[in-house]
């Protein structure tokens, strides 16, 4: 970044990249210092002239470093960082740039991680939100650092993630001059991709806007908030709290109050549910963000209402329950009353598999979304947790034995079909079929030595996702991160995995019981190309991530051009690309699996490395594009039925 005369007013020591790196390395604080060891690649062992990949000593020093929390007099950046701390910002992901803000946040003791691309770091923040329910921030420098984040902001917006996007933005005094480089209007660029945004131009209001940003992030339906900081604001000096406008004391601007359901709506919903023969609850984002899983369980069990999940994360309702309908897609069309709870991204008619006669009760924290896309019979504006608690209280104990038996039968039929997919996939021995990956991964996570609720999973990819998700099960909140979700971006997966692994490392929120456990991520060969460099980030911070790459030598879209010699090649990569070698070059462990029988052993090895060395791995599963052709390789490319384990769009 080129600095303008304004930005040069700050001392070099305060804004230097070296200082930034030291601050960012504070994120490594939760990692044992001993973990920062050399990675001995085979080439290094064979050739003493080749030095091993090594985490710089500064990381170990940073892990021991003391935070130097600011006291008044404070800069604008320090005031903002204090707001972040007070409001519970859980983590910051960044790339160099926006130094004043990043350094101040790190000094507040908020875990701070730096990666290779601002977009991937913003995906990491999104991933962190989706497995913890907490607010995470992403930061980039003005201009290109900020615009690198756009795709990730859009993905987080579609997923309704409370990502705080922070970007420096030169100096007010230089606006419209094109002095220096990297000038750009940021706020119009995120129009339609955020819940709230503001270019801060009045230094003494920085605290007020910071607090307002968190109110936006923590209330109603969460979505990204984008703040951009000119130098005059971050470097302003404040001698005492009263130098700031409005209120410094959070009791004057914050409440934990939530919208409670109207009793009339509860009565109407109860009446509808009492008449229902085959009721069902759809649990989505709002159940996770309002921490309503216990209330959901109480209601479901008391009234014997099956639950199916949808949304950007899964696991709020355990698949171990006989009331779970996640793996019973064939039963969905039988539901006669459907309770949609916190389904922020609402499908249109026909996108969910519920039949045309189903009646809908929709619970949403904001009134404007009620009735959007799907007709309702009862609309309830409420915090999801409050509504579920009220419904659980008001509903009588009920029985729906025949309905639950129907769901059990549908689940068995679905799982029997999965077995046939696996048998077929395993019979193709010259490459690794997606059904083999999905089934054996599922066995490893849920039916082996690991506690089935332990592994946090990033379900990414495109074609491979349609297989893996069918076998995925959630047993606790925050266990499954539902990939690119509604925005459908290709390639965020390693970024998501970094965010999830940081959440697990720190044991944040619902990840507390699984602290430091390995995280597994599935992606495709198209997707890995976007964020594979973040394996270097994962290796640098010793994040135990296992990335499984389904490598079929093609974009998932190739079948659309399969009969077009002119355009087919546009969808193809080189065959047999060695992503595992790239991973090794970045400090991760690499596995190349070319036969279905070798997958499980490679997974076991990668897991052991994750456990023993806290180091990432990439398992490159060599497939072939023709696996998507049903006539050649049954069952071919699969579709999706939503909601449930296959949920992809909503």
């Amino acid at each position, binding site marked *: 970044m080129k600095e303008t005369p304004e930005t040069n007013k700050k001392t070099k020591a305060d804004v230097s990249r070296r200082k930034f790196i030291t601050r960012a390395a504070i994120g490594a604080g939760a990692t044992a210092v001993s973990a920062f060891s050399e990675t001995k690649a085979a080439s290094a062992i064979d050739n003493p002239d080749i030095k091993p990949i090594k985490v710089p000593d500064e990381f170990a020093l940073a892990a021991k470093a003391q935070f130097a929390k600011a006291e008044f007099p404070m800069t604008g950046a320090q005031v903002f960082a204090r707001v972040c701390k007070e409001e519970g910002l859980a983590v910051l992901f960044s790339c160099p740039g926006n130094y004043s803000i990043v350094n101040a946040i790190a000094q507040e003791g908020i875990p701070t991680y730096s990666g290779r691309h601002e977009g991937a770091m913003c995906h990491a923040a999104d991933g962190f939100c989706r497995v913890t329910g907490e607010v995470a921030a992403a930061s980039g420098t003005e201009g290109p650092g900020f615009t690198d984040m756009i795709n990730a902001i859009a993905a987080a917006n579609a997923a309704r993630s409370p990502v705080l996007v922070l970007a420096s933005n030169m100096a007010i005094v230089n606006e419209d001059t094109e002095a220096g480089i990297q000038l750009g209007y940021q706020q119009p660029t995120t129009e339609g991709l955020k819940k709230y945004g503001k270019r801060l131009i009045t230094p003494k209001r920085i605290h007020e806007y910071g607090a307002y940003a968190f109110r936006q992030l923590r209330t109603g339906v969460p979505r990204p908030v984008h703040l951009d900081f000119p130098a005059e604001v971050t470097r302003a000096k404040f001698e005492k709290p009263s130098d700031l406008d409005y209120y410094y004391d959070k009791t004057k601007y914050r409440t934990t109050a939530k919208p409670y359901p109207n009793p009339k709506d509860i009565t109407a919903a109860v009446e509808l549910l009492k008449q229902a023969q*085959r009721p069902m609850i759809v649990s989505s984002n709002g159940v996770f963000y309002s921490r309503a899983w216990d209330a959901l369980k109480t209601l479901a069990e008391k009234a014997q209402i099956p639950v199916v999940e949808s949304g950007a994360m899964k696991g709020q309702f355990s698949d171990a329950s006989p009331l779970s309908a996640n793996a019973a*897609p064939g039963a*969905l*069309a*039988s539901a*006669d009353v459907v309770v949609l709870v916190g389904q922020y991204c609402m499908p*249109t*008619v*026909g996108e969910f*598999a519920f*039949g*045309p*006669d189903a009646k809908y009760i929709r619970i949403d924290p904001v009134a404007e979304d009620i009735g959007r896309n*799907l*007709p309702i019979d009862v609309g309830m504006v409420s915090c999801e947790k409050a509504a579920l608690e009220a419904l659980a209280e008001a509903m009588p104990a009920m029985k729906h034995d025949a309905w639950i038996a*129907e769901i059990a039968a549908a689940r068995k039929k679905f799982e029997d079909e999965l077995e046939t997919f696996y048998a077929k996939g395993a019979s193709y021995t010259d490459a690794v079929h997606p059904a083999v990956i999905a089934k054996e991964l599922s066995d490893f996570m849920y039916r082996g030595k690991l506690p089935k609720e332990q592994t946090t999973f990033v379900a990414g990819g*495109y074609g491979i996702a349609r297989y893996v998700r069918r076998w995925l099960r959630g047993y606790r909140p925050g266990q499954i991160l539902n990939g690119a979700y509604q925005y*459908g971006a290709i390639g965020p997966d390693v970024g998501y995995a970094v965010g999830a692994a940081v959440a697990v490392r720190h044991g944040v929120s619902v990840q507390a019981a699984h602290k430091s456990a390995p995280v597994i991520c599935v992606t495709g060969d198209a997707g890995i190309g976007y964020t594979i460099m973040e394996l270097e980030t994962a290796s640098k911070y010793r994040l135990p991530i296992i990335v499984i790459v389904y490598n079929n030598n093609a974009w998932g*879209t190739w*079948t*659309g051009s399969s009969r077009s010699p002119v355009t087919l090649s546009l969808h193809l990569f080189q065959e047999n690309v060695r992503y595992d070698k790239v991973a090794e070059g970045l400090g991760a462990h690499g596995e190349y699996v070319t036969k279905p029988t070798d997958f499980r052993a490679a997974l076991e090895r990668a897991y052991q490395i994750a456990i023993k060395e806290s180091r990432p791995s990439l398992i490159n599963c060599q497939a072939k594009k023709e696996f998507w052709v*049903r*006539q050649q390789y049954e*069952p*071919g*490319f*699969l*579709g*999706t*039925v939503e909601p449930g384990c296959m949920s992809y769009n909503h």
Partner: protein
Amino acid sequence: MAKSQLQVIRESLQTYADRGIFREFSESKTGQFHFVWLLHREMNLQVDTATQTLRFKQLLPGIPTGSALHAELKKFLTERHDRRLPEHRRVDRRRAEVSCSSRGGMVSISLKVKKNQYTYGVNRLVNLIHDLFVYLRDKHPDYLVENFDVPQE
């Protein structure tokens, strides 16, 4: 005075329009209903009370007679009568029978009701078409991409 058979059908369909399931519901000629429904496509339902038949005309394009998908479709429809299906998902042969026909690769789905049980017939046929599209989403996403402009991603 008893409602005409067509009025029973009209009112049954109107219920879906009133609930927001069907959009742009209209009747161009007597017994020829049009509405936008699944995949945001216009669908045409023809009623022939003389033969007690409800027919979704030219519902599925690109399925030649004798093709694998045509055979699969026929199997799917036959299974709608399977007594192992729950009653609320089944088409009871004693009350109605479902079939399909193909002309020029265009498949129409018909339901012939018995003893003028049109309320039952409309309900079963609408639910069956819904089930059919769920099935296609699950098993034949490529078909929907090619023939219904469903986004490939």
